[in-house]
């Protein structure tokens, strides 16, 4: 059974058809890519899967459960982590707090425990802090745990986002243009981090990306989206040589 299965998903914004008959099936442990020109509807697909929007038509199944219409906090708690195209961090909170915040759905002590500091609360808080620090270690920013994110460089903020997404214990990680705004050095680092995360947790990754080299190197299979429709799907090699993809990116050759 695939981890995530999307069948015949279509979405309208008013009269505009943003996504048309979209299908996807991700197995446990796969890294998949979604490419396409700006405005093709890639982020919309992420928003549909994560419950920010409710698809107009179609089925979405995650871990064997239909998630269409579930509020996004429940979908997230099922094990779907996500990062964003434009960094969306809580600027004046510390790095550690970002990660601990994402553990919300795993914390089960009650209000009484919170106020009076019961044993279970203290125990859980300790474990969670430890887990959070390990995640920061994994993405290489443990030494910055107490810094406020607004003061940190861009590449580091990307890692904070990654750690935050990992803190909800995802089975599937959705990365929306993880390399946006990065320089080549940061890019190589990030690829390293993604590989490491993938190996450590054995999770599935679905990423939107514009940098071809990055996608081609990481992903097993890639979909190309144009005007809300998948025009090509296949291995990196197949995608690279697909005339439709080349046309979408470079334009049609003018016949003379």
């Amino acid at each position: 059974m695939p981890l995530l299965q999307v069948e015949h998903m279509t979405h309208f914004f008013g009269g505009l058809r943003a996504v048309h008959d979209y299908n996807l099936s991700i197995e446990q442990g796969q890294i998949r890519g979604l490419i396409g020109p700006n405005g093709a509807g890639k982020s919309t697909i992420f928003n549909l899967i994560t419950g920010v929007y409710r698809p107009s038509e179609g089925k979405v199944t995650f871990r064997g459960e239909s998630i269409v219409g579930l509020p996004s906090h429940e979908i997230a708690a099922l094990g779907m982590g996500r990062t964003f195209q434009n960094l969306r961090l809580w600027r004046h909170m510390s790095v550690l707090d970002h990660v601990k915040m994402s553990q919300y759905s795993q914390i089960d002590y009650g209000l009484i425990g919170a106020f009076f500091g019961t044993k279970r609360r203290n125990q859980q808080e300790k474990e969670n802090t430890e887990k959070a620090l390990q995640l920061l270690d994994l993405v290489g920013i443990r030494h910055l745990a107490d810094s406020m994110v607004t003061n940190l460089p861009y590449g580091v903020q990307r890692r904070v986002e990654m750690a935050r997404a990992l803190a909800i214990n995802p089975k599937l990680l959705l990365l929306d243009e993880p390399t946006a705004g990065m320089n080549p050095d940061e890019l190589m680092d990030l690829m390293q981090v993604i590989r490491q995360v993938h190996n450590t947790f054995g999770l599935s990754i679905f990423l939107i990306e514009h940098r071809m080299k990055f996608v081609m190197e990481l992903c097993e299979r890639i979909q190309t989206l144009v005007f809300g429709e998948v025009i090509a799907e296949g291995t990196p090699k197949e995608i690279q040589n697909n005339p439709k993809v080349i046309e979408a990116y470079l334009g049609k050759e003018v016949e003379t």
Partner: protein
Amino acid sequence: MGYFLQNIVNALQWGSFYALVAIGYSMVYGVLMLFNFAHGDVFMVGAYIGFFTASGLMALAAMGSIAIPGWLILILTLIIAMFLNSFVGMAVERIGYRPLRDAPRASAAITGLMIGIILETGNLALLGAQRRAFPPLIPPTVYKVGGVYITNQKIVIIVVALALTLALHQFVQHTKWGMAMRAMAYDFLVVPLMGIPINTIAALTFALGSALAAAAGVLYGVAYPVLGPYMGIIIGWKAFVAAILGGRGSILGAASAGFLLGFIEIFVTMIFPSTMRDFIAYTIILLILTFLPNGFFGEPYSAKLRL
């Protein structure tokens, strides 16, 4: 000197009410970017719930002809009023604000004013225009400490206000709900995607703010035992000023600004005739805000960030 110290004690008591009410304003404003203009009236409802609880408990005690000490009734009244008023707050959020979460902020502000009027006039319709006298729960005992007269009521009010402020501060800084509140202050898109139910957090924010307002209402009844349907308006406005002065969403900021308001008002009356009190006090605050537009603890904030 004794006179001066006396006024400090008075200012602390007077500021306690502002502080407790201001925290509720500040929390809602910080988490939902919403001016809950009904909050002063939620304070009024809290005072009335306290009045009925205290009267009921006293009647119960009289019926069983057991002597329940006044301080125990006061504690029970505080707890019950805070508990019940938190549901009033959640109802205000659910009925008034949640349907307007994506509406322009002006609509939400007007909603607050309307809910306020409904609470005031609802009280008027239900209970009539006569004022209610809050039952004397703890008979005043006066202690004289170095020329300063301190009543046991003043001590209770100040201690309860400070304790609640600190407890809430701890809550917001160190629990998952508090952290969720701080995160929600930045956006509504990412927070649910990290597994956090924003409707629950919004309701909790209103519940906590309203519980504190109820505590303020009960304590106010202890100090000034006359309740009326419009008692929340001026206190609400002034607490709102304190919330802004303290800085958006900052609990300690709102509380300290509430106490500062108490100090300014009391010390203005030390020097000037009391009819001039608010005129001078709020001119001073206007000047403070001119130079500190973000308040004491406010972060520079751009509304564009909020989705």
